[in-house]
């Protein structure tokens, strides 16, 4: 209870952290209740109402707060539905990246020598691809869709986890308590998972938070390039991409989806920065 109060106090003191937290919570609530709170069916086309500007602009209709798109679909509803897609991909992608990264990082840090060298070189190879190139390469070869987007997220994100976990484990594995467990006959597997990994929870949480933002951006970029999720699913990136044909007549279609991506990424990063300062101030998250 004291701990909760302490966290809360620190969060309120850091204004940016609090703003980020509020943005994340709002985003989560909107995504989770999206099927209830959307004013219209995000797939319903009313061609009579196509390309309506937002309600406050000249020619806007009050029934469509943020206007409509080229097929007369309600923009607000589509944005709300898009948050669900974005959140789902972000969670799946981060989880996949964290799993791979923690596992390989732990192996490299614990066993050192050859294992470390091999995993280290794989990291170097991975880092020498610009991630968006890697992403479209994978999508082009294996096809798009949620599963492959998650795969892309895992491949482009695992290094950040692996690096931190490896470093932490290298410093912990020499400590006396690990030595003690080993001399009592503890197996490697058990030492790593039960005794060492719990120590890296806080840096992993920080990296995971910042990774969420990266995956949101990645999915949006891929969808923007037409290589993300299937065409019929409304995603923010795809909506932006489609808006290019209507820039002259309907600039609101360009402004709002981008604003959503921006807001979510900003919120997650602000919260992530606070979280790092609170949990693990020495952690280097610049790369």
């Amino acid at each position: 209870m004291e701990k909760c109060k302490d966290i809360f106090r620190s969060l309120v003191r850091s204004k940016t952290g609090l703003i980020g937290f509020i943005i994340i919570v709002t985003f989560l609530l909107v995504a989770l209740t999206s099927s209830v709170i959307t004013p219209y069916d995000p797939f319903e086309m009313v061609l009579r109402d196509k390309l309506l500007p937002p309600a406050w602009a000249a020619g806007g209709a009050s029934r469509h707060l943020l206007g409509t798109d080229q097929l007369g679909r309600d923009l607000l509803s589509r944005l709300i539905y898009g948050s669900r897609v974005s959140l789902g991909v972000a969670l799946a992608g981060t989880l996949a990246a964290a799993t791979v990264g923690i596992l390989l990082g732990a192996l490299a840090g614990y066993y050192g020598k050859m294992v470390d060298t091999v995993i280290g070189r794989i990291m170097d190879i991975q880092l020498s691809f610009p991630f968006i190139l890697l992403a479209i390469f994978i999508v082009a070869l294996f096809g798009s869709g949620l599963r492959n987007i998650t795969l892309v997220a895992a491949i482009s994100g695992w290094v950040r986890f692996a690096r931190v976990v490896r470093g932490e484990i290298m410093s912990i594995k020499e400590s006396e308590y690990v030595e003690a467990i080993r001399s009592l006959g503890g197996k490697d597997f058990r030492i790593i998972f039960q005794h060492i990994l719990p120590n890296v929870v806080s840096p992993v949480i920080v990296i995971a938070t910042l990774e969420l933002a990266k995956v949101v951006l990645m999915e949006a970029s891929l969808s923007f390039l037409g290589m993300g999720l299937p065409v019929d699913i409304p995603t923010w990136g795809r909506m932006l991409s489609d808006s290019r044909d209507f820039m002259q007549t309907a600039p609101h279609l360009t402004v709002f989806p981008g604003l959503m991506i921006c807001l979510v990424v900003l919120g997650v990063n602000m919260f992530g920065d606070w979280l790092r300062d609170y949990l693990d101030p020495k952690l280097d998250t610049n790369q």
Partner: protein
Amino acid sequence: MSRYIVKRMLQSVIVLLGVTAVVFFALNLTGDPVTFMFPIDTPIEVLEEYRATSGMNDPKLIQYGRFLWGALHGDFGTSHYYNQPAMQVVLERLPATFLLAFTAFLLALVIAIPTGILSAVKRNSVLDSIVRFFSMLGQCVPIFWLGLLLMLLFSVKLKWLPTIGSGTWKHLIMPTLTLAPGTAASITRLLRSGMLDVLGQDYIMVARAKGIHNGPLILKHAFKNSLSSVLTVLGLQLASLMGGSLITENIFAWPGVGQLMYNSILNRDFMVVEAGVCLIASFFVFVNLAVDILYAVINPRVRFE
């Protein structure tokens, strides 16, 4: 020092081998690479003949060896779309991408160096808050959105700049403005924290006590030393610029490697994709190698790790 350089170069060679292996085997993992090399409607007899004449029925390792040998000579096969050697197609597009990436990189440095220094020196001032806000924002705004917003403003509303294409300096403005802010934001943040670290050191206090003026103190003593923290990331930043140019080129129809990669993937012109991926990846490896060697020159402690 030379031992360190040799060790680092060997590492780079291994990484490059890895890159070619990834490119080669990824293409083979998907099943039949021959189907990727020709348009979808190619008759089966043509595919069969190609398979037989080009050694596609050999064991994969032998094929990889052949691919590697070709890659070493810059030979990635012939692009079926352009009917030219794949590497040549990529190289023709390279200058445009370099122009864009380096202009953006320069602009980013011009913005980031003064703002990074100022916001560290005037820590917690209004200026610092503004710089921090913008550098946060710069890392969050998706570049494709920024590109579209610039287009809305400068082409659609103000009609000052051409929307897409290349050729004049006017065409370069919007892609540069799209690419630079993200990089500028990262460098500003890094430089600020590097400067803050250095400014807190004892020797700065000593220098100040000796009566060295603020100007020389900041530039000569603090900025120079904080550069090492920025340098290591510059290579990665250049990397992300090349990646970012892929999207930017696509938005503004800028005829660079990024746009070529994208179109080649859509055209299933995988020879060009392989050549491009290998070329860009080796560019990174060399940039990172150069950065690491430079870093070892500046900071001798690294050489002995």
